[in-house]
């Protein structure tokens, strides 16, 4: 039935049809709704059932626990700051209503650009943005205004992805580029003590908080030179202020299990990030300066801030990470090590995950180069000896 309907309206979108300007959008929806029955012409006659739609939707599913918890936490922090009582559903619904516009803005702006580019290049729409579009709202503070989100998304889709040729060709993780853009363009809206709370009522839900209410993240407190009094249990469950999706280690762990089990993400990268972070954290604990941040136990560093979220969802992005199997260990290890080092030594800003991953995105090709070059020299040597 759906197929018949699509076949009926299809001519409108083809060359010369009235709606030709929306060809890419139509094709995107058509292939989304009905699997194309195009069959193989050359090469293998049969194909694995996997495709990039499936892979991207697995990542989206893996993100859901962290997203849902993030929504709940928005409400929880609002009610906690107001000192008001609220049921779990009230808090969740409030967070949902705060979060929804952000997700919509991210998808509309990002997918809009993708559709235009696909139309212009006469290509199919690539699914990569389904993941990026959900990641971006999850890694910004709840106080980030919608227009900033829109600008950042547009910037990153155009300059971090499309100019390289689209999904699969980009060097930097587009979601992190969006965050880095916000961070450097609007630093006051991205860090400090004033951005981690949603202060307005939405549709009668939640509590109106005075503008002066502030709330520091544990890392913010540490960066200010004070030890944090947040219990370790809260750091793990995630009932602490922070970027929307990053706080709950449990929710992220569920996502990590999904990604690892389906092998969409590489366990080598993920594990190495934690090993690198733990090792450097431990080194600072043992030999570092007597600052509050350096003396925070290494295991707390691993669960604080964006470390877990970055390790699970960002470092493992197959496009921007190292592509050789051996390279993945080094790539992941250096991300973890760098992220904690930045945290420990950077006085201004106590979070290092974003910069560490972007930095290693840049070096991933170099790491791969070394591994591929070893294969090349082995072959060259063999040719010489024979």
């Amino acid at each position, binding site marked *: 039935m*759906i*197929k018949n309907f699509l076949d009926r309206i299809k001519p409108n979108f083809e060359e010369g049809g009235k709606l030709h300007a929306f060809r890419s959008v139509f094709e995107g929806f058509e*292939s*989304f*709704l*009905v*699997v*194309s*029955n*195009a*069959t*193989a*012409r*050359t*090469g*293998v*006659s*049969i*194909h*694995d*059932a*996997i*495709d*990039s*739609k*499936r*892979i991207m*939707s*697995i990542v989206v599913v893996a993100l859901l626990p962290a997203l849902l918890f993030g929504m709940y936490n928005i409400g929880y922090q609002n009610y906690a700051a107001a000192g008001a009582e609220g049921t779990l559903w009230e808090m969740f619904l409030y967070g949902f209503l705060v979060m929804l516009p952000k997700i919509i803005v991210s998808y509309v702006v990002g997918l809009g650009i993708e559709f235009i580019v696909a139309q212009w290049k006469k290509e*199919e729409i*690539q699914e*990569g943005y389904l993941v990026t579009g959900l990641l971006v709202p999850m890694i910004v503070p709840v106080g980030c205004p919608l227009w900033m989100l829109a600008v950042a998304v547009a910037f990153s889709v155009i300059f971090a992805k499309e100019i390289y*040729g*689209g*999904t*699969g*060709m980009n060097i930097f993780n587009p979601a992190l580029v969006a965050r880095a853009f916000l961070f450097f363009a609007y630093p006051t809206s991205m860090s400090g003590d004033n951005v981690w709370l949603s202060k307005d009522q939405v549709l009668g839900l939640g509590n109106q908080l005075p503008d002066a209410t502030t709330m520091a993240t544990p890392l913010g407190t540490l960066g200010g030179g004070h030890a944090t009094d947040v219990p370790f249990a809260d750091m793990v469950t995630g009932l602490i202020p922070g970027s929307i999706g990053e706080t709950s280690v449990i929710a992220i762990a569920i996502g990590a299990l999904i990604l690892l*089990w*389906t*092998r*969409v993400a*590489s366990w080598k990268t993920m594990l190495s990030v934690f090993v690198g972070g733990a090792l450097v954290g431990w080194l600072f604990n043992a030999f570092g300066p007597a600052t509050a941040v350096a003396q925070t136990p290494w295991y707390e560093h691993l669960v604080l801030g964006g470390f877990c979220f970055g390790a699970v969802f960002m470092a493992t992005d*197959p*496009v921007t*990470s*190292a*592509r*050789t*199997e051996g390279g993945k260990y080094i790539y992941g290890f250096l991300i973890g090590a760098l992220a904690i080092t930045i945290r420990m030594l950077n006085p201004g800003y106590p979070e290092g995950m974003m910069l560490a991953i972007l930095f290693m995105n840049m070096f991933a090709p170099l790491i791969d180069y070394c591994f*591929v070059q070893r*294969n*090349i020299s*082995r*072959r*060259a040597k*063999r*040719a010489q000896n*024979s």
Partner: protein
Amino acid sequence: MERTFKIRKGLDLRLEGEAPLTLRRPVRPSRCAVGPDDFYGMPVRLLVKEGEHVLAGSPLLTDKATETINVTAPASGTVKAIVRGERRKLLRIEIETDETQESVDFGTLDPRTADGRQVTELLLKAGLFAYFRQRPYDVVPSPAVQPKGIFVSAFSKMPLAADFSFVVKGREDDFKTGLLALSKIAPVSLGICPEQEDAAFVPAEGCRVYAFDGPNPSGNVGVQINHIDPVNKGETVWTLGAEEVIFVGRLLRTGRLDLTRRIALAGWGVNEAGYVETIVGTPMADLVEDNLKTGRNLRIIDGNPLVGRKSGTDGFLGAHSTEVCVIPEGDDVNEVLGWAAPRLKDFSTSRSYFSWLMGKGKKYNLDCRIKGGERHIIMSGEYDRVLPMDIYAGYLIKAILTGDIDRQEALGIYEVAPEDFAVAEFVDSSKLELQRIVREGLDVLRKENA
């Protein structure tokens, strides 16, 4: 036996309709056809005209450059049609076969006393030389270049592939004679699977025998070469299909060209799968007649579903084909939201579907849909997981796509043939036509190096 190689990378996939080890009624076709496409990379000159009478072993085509490599008629009969395609490209020569078969007498040759030169000349004359392939480039070799070795694989783990142990039954002597003859040209390496270690066709002397224990594509001769003695730049090795070694042995023993081979007829789309004795170039229609399932669009494949070519009832059995497979085409299937569905009957190496739950023995009925749009290479390591060679497959593919010839050489393009990428093409989530890409890369490289 020299040694056993344990192979870990790869993928065994079983499809419905595997051919049971039984012989069906032999097919004696009333016509047959030979085309230059089966003898890749050899520009040919046509030697016959329509209406001419030929014997089995009479030359039909010869290579333009040296006029020494002949392609000969698989059966005696009258040249009925010379079929050309676009821009008068020669597609095939069709022969109406005689009732009683006659063949050119090439004279017998004792492989124990013959030297390499004599064997090569006999193979050239009888048209069997054109069945060789060489690495690099995966083309018909030149007899003027001495190969470093000749490699033969006696098994295939491709889905629905013919079982050589059954094909060779009763022809062990031909096979051994063939190997002995080849060993006069260059050292011969035979790749077998562990189950074949004590088989009667494995010779005790005259060639080096290696066993390969592992999943598909461990039976690919390219994978075996890569493990035994990889091809370096400037070196040449020859490969020959195991069934074609039987042709060689038969030619030496009888002095006549007899291209009768046992092929597997398999796949969901055939009612009765099994093995059929027939000759090279038999019409597909004769092979599958009255044996096809009805009700669904079917695809007849000349070869197996991973490496074979799409054919049809108007097609002919290829010179190198060891099986004919019939599977559903799938262009009549409209799957709503298929990418999100559980797809319990479909196969995937990804654990985001459920075929990992079904165990290794489950047989699938896959159709020919691509099930996804073509994308840039997104996932990493997909190809490497199923390509048991010391080669970075993803990087090699990218080097080919960007036309970087130096890098292709450095990454080992001389060691590969398109078929080695078949399993990678199957699992690829970006749905790239890897075999076509590799073929085009090899063609460009060959032209540049010429």
